[in-house]
């Protein structure tokens, strides 16, 4: 919303104060002011009122005229002018020699063979409207040679307030409301508005009007006739233009002017079209043509202004084309009303049509405004058009009154909330300047919230704190730390593990952490041949490509691998993210926090890569939990999982995740000459593993015995089982020292380390154990290599 300092100064005397400082203070105390502050008129000088005394056609040009203009000086001035609307006796804006318009300085210069000593200006050239159809036509009775800026308020400071910062303040959608803030900030009085006395028309007939729907809180109207004026006064047009509105005609300009001044949207109907005003909703859908010519679909939720049963306007949003003021309109009906804010907001959404009027209504306007705005309207109307005649009594149906909000608090409450000392006098003065009715006895305060703040904005004591502190100025706050006792902090176990896991993966295994999205990108999955799997979808995804919430982290990571193929011949990525793996009985999402790790390596050494992943998982569990991991073969759940190498990761007998090889059909699409291994760990299950901690084992004084055994097999699993079956406490370590792969003659060499902390072992007792293991394996068909 654009605001005019001139307009604000109509209501509060800010003389002697720095405008820019005030605007900055407004930004800090009330609502955000955009950076681009405009100094209107500052780039114009030397423009005066001139009268065209003679007009001659240029001998060679059809467009140009040779003028003699009078600026009240001794001699007439010769001007060559191209405007089509020049006529003798017309007063216009004239840029004298030496005048400045923006970057241009006016100098005498030959134009199409004639000297031109100045320039007649259009309103656009002066910057007071976008009218460039001809030169300005000044109809006011002003002396020739008078500087234009002395007659019209061309010099002004225009600033813009971010609409978003006004959503909770219906009172700030007007210059008068903004002026109240300036008055509070500057500690100057706010001037009352001048109104017409509407009680003078009480004897006139009332308008036939009735609210038939609770969504209309108040409806006020008045009829009048004999408007002779068509074009608005220049100053009014300038203000409207500076504030971002186009001048249309006097009546339309007046309603817009009132809206910008008081925040009350108004609408003028041709009285012939609104003989029985009814405010209601219909029980069926229909189309309705608004005054912008657009046919709009109206549903039973939309509140309408009607003439009997004929809709004439969409309440709070826009009037109808059919009831618009036309050339032969004789009597006008002026509407000033208040509607339910949520209803208007929803209607604008359904109609996808937001107007200056609906924007204000959806903020919950003060119903007290309706009649005041009419009184102000009539007052201004009479100022500008003395022939106007009011022909009805003020007709007012005030169906819903907001409750009067009264709040009590004490000084201690203010002290506690602010943490600084603000004295009683400042509290009272600030609230009073903002329009609150304050009673103060000792340290106790009772405030009555003014109607314009009581529609939703100020409802509780804490709201009063905001009023006091924002005007006090947050920059003026003395700041200090809290007087609160300290206690040790305890990080959530899953957060702690997550941090440590990241450190190990980055620092120890040189993996890269990447972020992705919580939904599957269907297009990308298709490219690598993975089905889009998930248990729940977004209801309002703007893009069908991203509507499924992922069930596993891995497909996203495979897509990331694909997009990074050129990065390096081998790399690994990971992410701690969320997946939805199922639904509860109550239809709530089962969300899990998963660690996804994916390793990529050029070449075909799949086993090496698989074992690398195994090592990574074992390291994580060993470092953070001091536990060992076992792996068990799994049946694939997803189509990207390899049916042969897919293993559950088991710690303490509980499955915490899985590792697996990527299915060849996916690998063919991803990269034929590389292998990819993944792991997916449930972080909550990981965090739940009890930390075994390090148990210190002192050095043994007795030497251990190492026995190497080589078995004719390609699988370690049976050997491991046989050693476990031996259950010998003397075996302190089992290491695989060699794997020889040769179809029939494959062998695995194992080194067993025996020791005891209390004695030296004998060769015999050790051999007894190994013999037992060898015999055990023999039964399984695994023979010792001789």
């Amino acid at each position, binding site marked *: 919303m654009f605001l005019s300092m001139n307009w604000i100064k109509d209501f509060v005397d800010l003389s002697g104060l720095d405008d820019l400082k005030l605007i900055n203070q407004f930004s800090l105390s009330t609502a955000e002011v955009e950076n681009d502050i405009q100094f209107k008129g500052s780039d114009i000088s030397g423009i005066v009122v001139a009268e065209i005394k003679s007009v001659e056609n240029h001998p060679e040009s059809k467009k140009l005229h040779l003028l003699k203009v009078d600026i009240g000086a001794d001699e007439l001035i010769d001007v060559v002018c191209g405007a089509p609307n020049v006529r003798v006796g017309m007063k216009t804006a004239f840029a004298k020699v030496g005048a400045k318009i923006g970057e241009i300085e006016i100098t005498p210069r030959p134009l199409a063979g004639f000297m031109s000593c100045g320039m007649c200006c259009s309103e656009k050239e002066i910057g007071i409207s976008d009218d460039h159809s001809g030169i300005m036509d000044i109809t006011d009775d002003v002396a020739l040679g008078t500087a234009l800026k002395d007659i019209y308020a061309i010099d002004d400071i225009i600033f813009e307030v971010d609409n978003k910062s006004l959503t909770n303040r219906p009172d700030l959608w007007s210059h008068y409301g903004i002026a109240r803030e300036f008055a509070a900030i500057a500690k100057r009085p706010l001037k009352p508005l001048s109104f017409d006395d509407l009680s003078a028309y009480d004897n006139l007939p009332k308008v036939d009007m009735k609210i038939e729907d609770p969504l209309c809180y108040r409806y006020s109207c008045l009829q009048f006739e004999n408007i002779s004026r068509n074009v608005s006064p220049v100053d009014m047009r300038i203000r409207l233009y500076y504030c971002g509105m186009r001048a249309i005609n006097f009546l339309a300009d007046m309603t817009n002017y009132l809206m910008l001044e008081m925040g009350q949207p108004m609408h003028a109907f041709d009285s012939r079209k609104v003989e029985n005003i009814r405010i209601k909703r219909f029980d069926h859908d229909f189309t309705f043509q608004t005054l912008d010519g657009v046919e709009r679909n109206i549903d039973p939720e939309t509140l309408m202004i009607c003439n009997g049963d004929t809709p004439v306007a969409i309440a709070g949003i826009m009037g109808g084309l059919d009831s618009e003021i036309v050339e032969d309109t004789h009597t006008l009906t002026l509407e000033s009303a208040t509607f339910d804010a949520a209803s208007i907001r929803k209607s604008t959404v359904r109609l996808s049509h937001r107007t200056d009027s609906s924007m204000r209504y959806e903020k919950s306007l003060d119903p007290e405004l309706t009649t005041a705005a009419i009184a102000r309207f009539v007052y201004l109307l009479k100022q500008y058009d003395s022939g106007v005649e009011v022909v009805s009594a003020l007709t007012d149906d005030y169906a819903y009154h907001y409750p009067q909000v009264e709040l009590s608090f004490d000084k201690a409450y203010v002290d506690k909330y602010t943490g600084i000392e603000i004295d009683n006098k400042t509290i009272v003065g600030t609230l009073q300047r903002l329009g609150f009715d304050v009673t103060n006895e000792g340290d106790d305060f009772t405030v009555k919230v003014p109607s314009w703040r009581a529609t939703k904005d100020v409802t*509780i004591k804490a709201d009063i704190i905001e009023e006091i502190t924002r005007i006090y100025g947050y920059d003026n706050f003395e*700041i200090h730390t809290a007087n609160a006792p300290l206690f040790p902090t305890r990080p959530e176990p*899953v957060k702690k593990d997550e941090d440590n896991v990241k450190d190990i993966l980055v620092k120890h295994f040189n993996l890269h*952490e990447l972020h992705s999205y919580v939904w599957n990108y269907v297009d990308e999955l298709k490219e690598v041949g993975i089905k889009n799997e998930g248990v729940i979808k977004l209801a309002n995804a703007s893009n069908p490509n991203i509507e499924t919430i992922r069930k596993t982290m891995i497909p996203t990571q495979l897509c990331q691998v694909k997009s990074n193929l050129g990065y390096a011949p081998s790399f690994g990525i990971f992410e701690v993210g969320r997946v939805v793996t199922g639904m509860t009985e109550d239809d709530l999402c089962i969300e899990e926090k998963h660690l996804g790790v994916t390793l990529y390596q050029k070449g075909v050494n799949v086993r090496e890569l698989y074992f690398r992943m195994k090592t990574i998982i074992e390291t994580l569990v060993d470092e953070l939990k001091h536990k060992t991991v076992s792996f068990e073969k799994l049946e694939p759940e997803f189509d990207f999982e390899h049916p042969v190498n897919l293993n559950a990761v088991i710690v303490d007998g509980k499955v915490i995740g899985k590792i697996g090889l990527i299915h060849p059909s996916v690998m063919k699409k991803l990269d034929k000459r590389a292998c990819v291994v993944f792991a997916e760990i449930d972080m909550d299950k990981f965090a739940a593993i009890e930390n075994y901690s390090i148990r210190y084992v002192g050095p043994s004084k007795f030497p251990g015995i190492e026995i190497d055994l080589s078995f004719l097999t390609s699988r370690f699993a049976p050997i491991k089982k046989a050693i476990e079956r031996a259950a010998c406490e003397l075996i302190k370590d089992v290491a695989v020292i060699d794997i020889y792969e040769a179809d029939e003659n494959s062998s695995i060499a194992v080194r067993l380390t025996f020791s005891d902390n209390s004695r030296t072992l004998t060769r015999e007792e050790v051999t007894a154990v190994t013999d037992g293991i060898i015999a055990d394996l023999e039964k399984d068909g695994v023979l010792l290599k001789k």
Partner: protein
Amino acid sequence: MKEKLEQLKSRLSEELSAAADPQALESLRVRYLGKKGSITDLLKGMKALSNEEKKEFGQLVNTLKQQAAESIQKRAEELKELEIKKEIELMPEFDLTIPTKEERGSYHPITLVQRECERIFTTMGFNVEDYPEVVTDYECFEAVNVPKNHPARDMQDTYYLTNGELLKSQTSAAQNAILKKYGPALREKGMPIRAIFPGRCFRNEATDATHENTFFQMEGVMVDKDISISNLIYFMKTMLSEVFRRDIKVRLRPGFFPFVEPGFELDINCLICGGTGCPSCNHSGWLELCPCGMIHPEVLKEGGIDPEEYTGFAFGLGLTRLAMMKYGVKDIRDLNSGSLKVMSQFTDDK
């Protein structure tokens, strides 16, 4: 015999200087001092001598033996030194201008910034919380004073799921749970609630260089008997100065957020121009960084905390924004691009 001895002596000295490496020296030692060496032979040849001669000659041979051992040892040391000298001479000088690179892992920049914030707040007594991404309408809105039909719901384009749950549009969705979690300790043991909650948030909006549908925020809450606006400004200023590792100026403006009253927009002085105005801060000298405010009494009540007895502040720091500012990331989409070329730069930042 003596002649022989003298001959041996001079031959040894000749051969010693000729021995150019440890192997030659060793064979020389064997030839003279070994079991069948020349000096040993001399002793063997003494059998034929008289006792007196044996004594005299024996002494001479023993002296020779000793001298020989010493000079061989001396020569060995000389050779060692020569060898080291030679090794040094052979060593080339390295050209360190040759580029080298050790492949290192990397963190996501959000992780780095998040850790920094967590560290700072932990030192100030704040607990770090964890919270889901899928939340209920109650958690995200109702519990934080945004009832149905509230215009604030329009401001946030929320992603709803088909079961009526939603992807949290703000970390404030965790506030209610945090208040309920620590409320009992506040009431019973007087332990102030101090918690931060970093998390991923979602907004249903079109993405461009400055807008993402997925981004990170960090919620912070502090509740105790006398928490004030003054405390809020202090904590924000302190924390931000720590994050940016310099003294940060903060500025509060009124801001409207349903979960706080009063609510603020917090600006910091532009880090690029220092506050004098530059294109980065749109020539204002200030950057809007973080909404904050005093927790709305309704929010406290909904979290089981009596707003007459306790007050608190809350803030929502944009971690994504912070990471972009800290590292000069111009396009927000880079962060979720999954591009290793770009993201592998963030090896660590301690």
